[in-house]
């Protein structure tokens, strides 16, 4: 398995190179340059000043030179400085990462706590009222656009009822609050984003758990477990669920990039200070170093997620041997 791990790790290098090249090209071929974005609103800026700005950031060099220089830096984890405020891109990401992690771990936890029991119960009561209601419920969550639901709930709970804050992660007076007050403030800000993120993400995992559980419950080894006279709880949790949860590992591996990358639209709606909003703002400002840093990190995590999923499969299922 260690050999497999290192071989897969080596294989990620060309894939990562391809991703960096694509990210770089897409960003540089987008109309408008950072110099335009910085100077367009200022009529006094001359063409000379614009070209000096382009020279300063190395934007006047041929694309391949810019790419090789950039690649040389990211090997040393130096993603360059933001064009907007000259701060290192990696530091900006490090500042935003905890907020995105907090939101996504909470919503992922909520999804797990709800989706797995819901999927299991829907499988046990297949084609009964509970299954129908659960299926309709998760499909509603799947079908409703997250941004629309977010806006509706913000209007209801933020504006009409005034129970929850509309945006951000903290209130303005956060620093003046006591520790329990700070925790409560943070919790109030997280309620809507976590709920919406979890509600719209429930469907996939619930359906996977349900169909996987239905398949497993039909297996002879489950019939054999009943024939052994084992308690129903042991059959369900020890024999069936252990086998049914294998596909969930794949979903978890694939959700790792989302866990770190954050949701661009989602975080923007809630003015949530996470990675998604950082990426969105950077794209709008043609802030190449930040956009590409976010792109590369998310791409790396996607590959890492796939690798972790494969490795977890081998650990969870004794039949799988990685060679």
């Amino acid at each position: 398995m260690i050999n497999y791990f290192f071989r897969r790790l080596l294989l990620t290098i060309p894939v990562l190179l391809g991703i960096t090249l694509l990210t770089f090209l897409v960003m540089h071929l987008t109309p408008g340059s950072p110099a335009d974005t910085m100077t367009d609103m200022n009529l006094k800026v001359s063409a000379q000043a614009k070209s000096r700005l382009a020279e300063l950031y190395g934007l006047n060099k041929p694309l391949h030179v810019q790419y090789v220089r950039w690649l040389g830096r990211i090997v040393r984890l130096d993603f360059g400085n933001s064009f907007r405020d000259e701060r290192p891109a990696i530091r900006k990401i490090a500042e935003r990462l905890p907020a995105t992690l907090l939101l996504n771990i909470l919503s992922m936890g909520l999804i797990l706590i709800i989706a797995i029991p819901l999927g299991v119960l829907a499988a046990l009561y297949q084609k009964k009222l509970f299954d129908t209601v659960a299926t309709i419920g998760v499909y509603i969550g799947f079908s409703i656009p997250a941004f629309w639901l977010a806006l509706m709930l913000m209007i209801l709970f933020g504006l009409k009822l005034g129970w929850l804050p509309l945006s951000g992660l903290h209130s303005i007076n956060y620093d003046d609050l006591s520790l329990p007050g700070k925790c409560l403030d943070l919790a109030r800000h997280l309620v809507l984003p976590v709920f919406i993120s979890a509600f719209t993400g429930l469907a996939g995992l619930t359906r996977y758990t349900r169909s996987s559980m239905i398949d497993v419950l039909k297996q002879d080894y489950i019939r054999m477990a009943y024939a052994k006279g084992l308690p129903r709880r042991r059959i369900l949790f020890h024999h069936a669920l252990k086998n049914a949860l294998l596909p969930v590992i794949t979903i978890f591996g694939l959700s790792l990039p989302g866990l770190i990358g954050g949701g661009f639209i989602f975080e923007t709606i809630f003015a949530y200070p996470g990675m998604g909003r950082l990426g969105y703002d950077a794209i709008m400002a043609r802030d190449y170093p930040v956009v590409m840093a976010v792109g590369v990190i998310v791409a790396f995590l996607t590959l890492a997620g796939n690798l972790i999923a494969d490795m977890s499969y081998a650990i969870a299922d004794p039949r799988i041997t990685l060679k």
Partner: protein
Amino acid sequence: MNTTILQAQRLYKTFNRTVKALDDVSIELSAGSVLGIVGESGSGKSTLARILCGMIACDTGTIEIDGKNIDAYPRKQLSEKVQMIFQDPFSSLNPKLTVGTQLREAAGYRADDAIGEILAKVELPPAIFASYPHQFSGGQRQRIAIARALLKHPAIIIADEPLSALDVTTQNQILKLFQSMKDEHQTTFIFISHDLAVTSALADNICIMKAGKIIESGTAEAIIYAPESPYTKELLAAVPTMSQ
């Protein structure tokens, strides 16, 4: 005197309101005897097996084991009366649990020595405990499945086509194992198969099933040497011989 250990009377089972899987089936089984049930695919053999060990319920009819209605047994007690061996040894063992865990569950967490004794009966070493089912051949898995069934010391073992997923050599080994269980330990069996020749080698009595009905029953000798039903004759004619 042979005592009746299982008596099933007038069993009916229909699937999806249209498919008649069992149509007025009655059987009787004496302690220490082997009853063979033979029929083609879809004749209702496996449905009968699952009903007899309480996995599914029949629509109408009664089943008595040791003089007590099957519904009156709690599941755990029923598992001590009837055990089943499935057709496919590849799907009948949980792939995620070690063989040891699965055998210990069946043994009710009795000492490993007791499990070792049963394993010796089916010619498997105790060293298999820590291994997973996928590490064994089909024949070894079927032996594990048989050991698992024996660990409950059930009054009746229902073997549902236990040979059909195995190659000929392994079939022969497992058949010998059943034979020794019958001869040396007087185990009570219901042996289900589509192969009349194999069944006749093991069974004292045979029932021939077709389309959910028992169309002929009797001692193995009577069925083999003096069959009455044309279908039984067809089955016998289908048994390959050396000259063929």
